């Protein structure tokens, strides 16, 4: 045998052996499982760090407000206050049931924070609520990731492991965004989601607020010679208010004399879109689970009032973190669009209702 024949047969043997291992054993899958699980383990450590960091932030914030046992307040909050969605195979009344559940939950959280932070101001309490909620969400995210990880290990489910590993990059990024968002709420700066309330703030001018629903105010002002009711959550604490109920009340008072309802809100951008882009369309621009949105739609439909939507686009992360300059410039553009709609579509003696939807933290 010469040398070339020798290595050819070696390669042939290797090929046959290799294809046998690849096709008729679980070794490749086991290797994948091992590789993906070690990657996930690393990411879980990262998620745990983020979770601990968020807890430290809450405790720091609460101790700054002279809470006696901040750790106990935090631990009493996490894992509690979940909400079970209403029955949906019998949809009659589902909105009323859902609104009832949401408000019950909000009330019990408010009460919990009030009891534990008796000396804090309203704004501090509202911001503490959000901080507790974020910390709670981060704990939940970590738990869910660990759940799927352990399931995958338990049943040697390498597909589950692979899916989890592929998703995790995004999950960790979201968790980081939530953690960073806590700084915004601790400082009390406006966030991206505050674009709607900020538009309302600029439109209202010097008008005085009138409380109409819980944590929700309206202003009566004049824009382009038309009478305009501007609705927004009451700032500068962290709250979204009850804009749907506020619109319902105002429309029921004013009836057909309203010529136009304009909702302004932050909207999730597509990856290819730029932050701060502004677009307008038809409908209620509001991202609540349902009750507030349907209240606006019903009020508009009842009197046949056209419903306009103006949205300012941003990513998920930008929506919960300190407002960026691009979003602020988007707010400027949105104001011009709202004014244009009022000028072109509301008659001189007509009334317009403008609703700034979103979290009003850092904006009066």
């Amino acid at each position, binding site marked *: 045998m010469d040398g070339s024949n020798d290595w050819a047969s070696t390669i042939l043997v290797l090929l046959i052996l290799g294809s046998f291992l690849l096709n008729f054993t679980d070794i490749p899958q086991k290797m994948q499982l091992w590789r993906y699980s070690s990657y996930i383990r690393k990411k879980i450590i990262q998620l745990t760090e983020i979770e601990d960091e968020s807890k430290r932030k809450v405790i720091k914030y609460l101790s700054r407000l002279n809470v006696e046992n901040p750790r106990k307040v935090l631990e009493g909050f996490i894992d509690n206050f979940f909400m079970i969605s209403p029955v949906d195979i019998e949809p009659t009344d589902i909105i009323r049931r859902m609104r009832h559940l949401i408000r019950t939950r909000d009330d019990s959280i408010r009460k919990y924070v009030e009891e534990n932070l008796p000396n804090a101001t309203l704004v501090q309490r509202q911001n503490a609520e959000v901080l507790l909620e974020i910390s709670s969400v981060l704990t939940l995210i970590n738990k869910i990731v660990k759940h799927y990880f352990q399931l995958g290990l338990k049943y040697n489910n390498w597909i589950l492991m692979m899916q989890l590993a592929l998703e995790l990059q995004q999950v960790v990024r979201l968790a980081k*965004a939530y953690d960073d968002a806590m700084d915004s709420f601790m400082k009390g700066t406006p966030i991206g989601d505050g674009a709607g309330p900020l538009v309302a703030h600029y439109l209202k001018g010097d008008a005085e607020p009138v409380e109409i629903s819980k944590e929700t105010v309206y202003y009566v002002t004049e824009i382009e010679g038309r009478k305009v009711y501007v609705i927004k959550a009451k700032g500068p604490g962290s709250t979204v208010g009850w804009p749907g109920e506020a619109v319902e009340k105002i429309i029921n008072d004013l009836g057909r004399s309203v010529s136009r309802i304009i909702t302004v809100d932050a909207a999730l951008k597509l990856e290819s879109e730029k932050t701060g882009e502004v677009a307008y369309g038809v409908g209620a621009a509001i991202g609540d689970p349902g009750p507030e949105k349907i209240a606006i739609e019903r009020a508009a439909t009842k009197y046949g009032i056209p419903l306009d939507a103006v949205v300012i686009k941003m990513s998920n992360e930008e929506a919960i973190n300190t407002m960026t300059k691009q979003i602020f410039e988007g707010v400027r553009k949105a104001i011009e669009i709202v004014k244009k709609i009022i000028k072109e579509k509301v008659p001189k003696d007509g009334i317009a209702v403008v609703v700034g939807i979103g979290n009003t933290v850092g904006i009066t």
Partner: protein
Amino acid sequence: MLDPMTIVILAVLAFIITYMAVSAMKSRQEPLKKKVIVTQLKCSNCGYGERREFREGDYVGKEVGECPKCGGKLLVEAIYLEEVEGIPELRSAVSVPKSSQPQKNTGRY
């Protein structure tokens, strides 16, 4: 002449090392860009404007003092996050949350 087997092994090794080196380089984080939270002030009377770094307690619509020009009410007009390159007077910057910067998926698991 080199043994063909050695050539194959060397080629495979070279490929693996290059692959690992390239993905290690990709995964290196980009340096933090400096950003700062800016508070923009405006006089409600004469329109005089001013910018400074955000201070805790600032909120949009807050009255922060008197206008140095006409003595009118100086209000917080806007608060936003801005890259520091454009604002020389605010160069004593704070660092930015990492998540607000684009992160690349390195594709390594």
